[in-house]
Structure formats: C-alpha cells, structure tokens
C-alpha cells in the first residue's frame, strides 16, 4: 500500500448529480493512481481556517489521473466544496486508511451500498479482476436520489432497491440481498458494505446469522486523518475499547466493530 502524501489537486469539473449529491472531479494523479477501493482522501475546504477541519471523502472511480469525489452536502464544508470551479486548487492528503480486501478466487463478491455509500464500491468494482464473479446491489431512499454514476456498463449491472418502490426492488438493500443470494447457492459470498448506520447494523445481523464474511466501511467525524489525534474512534465489538476509523479502518471486518445505532458516532 502506498504511503499517503500531500497533493495539490486541480478541480476539473463540478456537477450536481441529484438533490444534495455532487460530483467533483479533481486532477490528482498521485491519489488517482494509488488509491485502493475503500481508502479516503482528507480534503481542505474553503479559504483560511473556517471551517477548521478537513473533510474525509471516499475515493470514487478514478480515471486518467482524475479523482472522483462524490458526496452529499452535510454542512458548510461540503457546501463550500460544491462551490469550487474548474481550475481551483484542492489541498488533498491521501490515500488514507485501509482498503477492502480482494475476494478469494472461489468467492462471489457481493457489493451492497446504501445511498452515498455506493462511492467506494464503484471503485472496488473497477479494481476487481475482470474475471471476478460479482453482484452489485444499491439501495436508495427513492429513485430520484439515485447517485449511481460509474460507467454505463456498471450502471446496467447494479440491482437497485428503493424504499418507496419508485425504482427497482421495493424495499431495503438488505431485503434485496436476501433474495439475490439464492442465485449463488453453493458459492461463498464475500460481502462489501457501505451505507448509513441502521443499514450497517442490519447487514451485520444478516451476515452473522448466515456466517457470511463481510467488510464494512465507516464514516465518522475525524480530526487529523493520520492516526495521531484519536478523534475518529468507533467501539470495538468485543467491548475492549475503540478502533480508529482513519488508522484501523475505514474498512473493517464487520465482526470487529460495534454497529448498534446507539453506539455509532
């Protein structure tokens, strides 16, 4: 894995994908080349020191030296990022954290995304061997919030679930997963999950009941992003203290972290 480095990226394109969801394309050859699926970049937003902290953003699909930062607007920092213009400089540190493990040859890679959690999984889908048997499930609140923006071939393969039934399967991504896994009877699934807290808790229950190997990537408020400040703690599943999202994650074995909603940061 490549050590993180400071990189001054150049914004190439800024575009709104859907209500509250944006896609900022940044020329950042080092991070575009070295980021592995699940890793993140720590991005400075705005001028000066207000907002003060960097924003940790998942690395999405990378092509031709460009990083895709696809995110939902949560507050002032991410809103400022949507105001970038082509040519603006973007102070980036990355790639940070641990990536998803690649599946074994005899495993079926099953990617399960919730909302904006699709971003690292799009990169995983890109970086897996073309021969890898795989399934990609993405759940959204409604079809209008569809944030799929990989290449066309990927988009066609993604099985969509919407909470309101406006597109694809009517129900949660986890319910759709249950239906789809039947297609792969006799094969070992390796689940890669990224999404909102309640969905991750449901995934953990689903996987532990069936003894399925799974990795989950988490997002929490973060300070340095380098393992020094210990701001980004998540409780360990065994109750013995905490793990750090920036240093031990953001990708974890789903059994290692306590994902019960009341314990999530």
């Amino acid at each position, binding site marked *: 894995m490549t050590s993180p*480095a400071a990189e001054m990226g150049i914004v190439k394109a800024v575009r709104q994908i859907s209500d509250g969801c944006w896609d900022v394309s940044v020329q950042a050859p080092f991070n575009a080349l070295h980021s592995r699926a699940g890793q993140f970049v720590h991005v400075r937003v705005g001028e000066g*020191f207000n907002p003060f902290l960097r924003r940790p953003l998942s690395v999405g699909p990378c092509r031709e030296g460009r990083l895709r930062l696809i995110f939902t607007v949560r507050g002032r920092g991410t809103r400022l990022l949507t105001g970038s213009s082509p040519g603006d400089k973007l102070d980036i540190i990355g790639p940070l954290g641990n990536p998803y493990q690649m599946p074994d040859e005899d495993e079926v890679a099953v990617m399960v995304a919730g909302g904006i959690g699709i971003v690292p999984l799009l990169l995983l889908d890109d970086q897996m061997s073309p021969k890898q048997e795989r399934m990609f499930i993405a759940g959204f609140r409604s079809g209008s919030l569809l944030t799929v923006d990989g290449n066309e071939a990927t988009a066609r393969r993604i099985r969509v679930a919407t909470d309101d039934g406006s597109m694809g399967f009517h129900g949660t991504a986890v319910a759709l997963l249950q239906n789809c896994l039947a297609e792969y009877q006799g094969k070992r699934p390796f689940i890669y999950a990224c999404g909102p807290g309640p969905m991750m808790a449901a995934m953990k229950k689903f996987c532990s009941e069936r003894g399925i190997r799974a990795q989950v990537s988490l997002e929490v408020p973060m300070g340095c992003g380098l393992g020094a*400040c210990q*701001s980004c703690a998540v409780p360990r599943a065994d109750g013995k203290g905490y793990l750090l999202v920036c240093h031990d994650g953001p990708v974890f074995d789903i059994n290692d972290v306590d994902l019960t909603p009341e314990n999530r940061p």
Partner: protein
Amino acid sequence: MNLDTTIKLGGLELRTPLLTGSGTFGYGDEFKTVMDYSALGGIVTKSISPQPRPGNPPPRICETGGGGIINSIGLANPGVDGFLADKVGCLPIGQTRVFLSVVGDSVEDFVTVVDKLESVAGVDGYEINVSCPNVRHGGLSLGGDKDAVKAIVSAVRSTTHRFVSVKLTPHHPAVEPMAEAAVKAGADALTLTNTLIGMAIDVEKRKPLLGTVTGGYSGPPLKPVALAMVWRAAQAVDVPIWASGGIVNGLDGIEFLLAGATCLQLGSVLFADPYAPGRVLREMEEYCLRHRVTKLTDLIGKLEPRR
C-alpha cells in the same frame, strides 16, 4: 538577511521555537509522510498515563461555527508500559527535540510515569499535564488546586533532571499564583494554555455533538484567552513560557513572542494544515525581515506600552 531562529531552554538548544501541541501529534511519526520536521524545534507527545486509557465514547470531535473545534478524546493512550513496549520507536529522537507529556490522577501517578520514562534515552524533557478538561479525575481538577500543582511538580522535580514544563489550565481565575507555585516547585517552563471547556449542540436533533456532551475548545478562537494568560504569566515568573492556543500563522506566533512566550505550540492547526510548521516559520521570517529583526528571541516580551 539570515534570521536566527534558535532558542535556548536551560541547557537545550532548539533550532526553532515551534513545538507540537500535546494530543495533536500522537507520538511523533504519524505525520511523517506529509510533514517536514525541519521547521520544528521539538515535539510534545500525546499524554502518557500510568494505566492504559481507552478514551471517551464517540463522537470525540466537532466544529463550532466560529472556526474552533471541540474535542473529547479523553487522553486515550496505551499507558506507560504500553508506551515503552510499542511507541518509543515512533519518537523522532535525533530529528528534533522530544518532550513526553505526562498525565495522572495523583502525585504518585506522575512520579510513577516519569520514573519509568527516565529509561528512554534521547528524551529531552516532560510536559506535565495538570489541566486536561476531558477526564473525570485528575487533569483539570488537579490543575485548579495550587497545592496539588506544587506537590506534583516538586515530586516530578525530584524524579528527573530533565527539562520540565507544566501545562496549566485557562480556567483558573488567576494564572499568576498557579504559575508561581509551579515555578517555585521546580518547573523549568510553563505551557499556557490547555483547552477551555466547551460544548456544541445539533439543534435539528436536539443532541450534543460530543459523546461526553462537553469537551476541550481549541483553535483560533482560543488565541486571545491564551495570549492574555501568557502575558500575565510572563509578568509573574521568570521561566520560558510555551504558548499554546489558536496559533495558525506566523503573526499569531509573533504576538505570543511579544507577549512573552519563548516557544510556540502548533496544535489543532495540524489537523487542518499539517504543513503549518514550515509555513508559520516562513511567515515569522517575513515579519522579521520587515522589522529588521535578526534574532527571533529579540522579540520575546518586547510588547511596547500602549502609551
């Protein structure tokens, strides 16, 4: 014009007055791939306690609207034995000066930790943290008690010949008696100041933003508070003062030097800008060039009277 940036702390020479603030820089190697250490005079590690501390329930960090942050890490650390087993190799000994931050709940705790840390060769000194707002016992409650500070510093003083700075709280109404007590008990320097207790609320959810509700407020909004404390302490005692509180650029550093600080700690700023040490030093050099200052120490305490 070449600016002389070196400073002296007792028998120690530091190539610049810039130090890292405890808790923001881990044990010294976490930033190594993105930071040039050459602008740093030294580092101050994360606080080391007698026993391991898991830290506080998350969330542990949040921003405030005014450009500050509040943290509630809770002095998470592996304890002194864990530090000795796993972290000594992280220290940038030989690259820059190394000061170990020490925390405890009692006089005995501080002595136990310092005594064990004496075995680590190449360490230049300690910062005694009697002012953390994020733990239930010790920390701030000790730092608000003049007799407790005196007892801790005296006991540490008789345990080590290394350089000792004592990190004081901004919450005590009068800094002078605390500063005098620490110095009388043998402190070689004072660090001013630790974070202020702060709180932030998510009004949509009607919930506190931190797992512990309150935490330590830091960043640029803390600077005026820290500056006042540095200035007042500098009038009261005759030891070097390590300024800590909201320094993000070179002019902030110059302000603290003029107020009487000898060293300048970069803390929270490292989260936003890990390149801050080099930048802050360059900005101070630009100021010195403009004002024909050739030696950075010539600025220490050189605040002119208002009239």
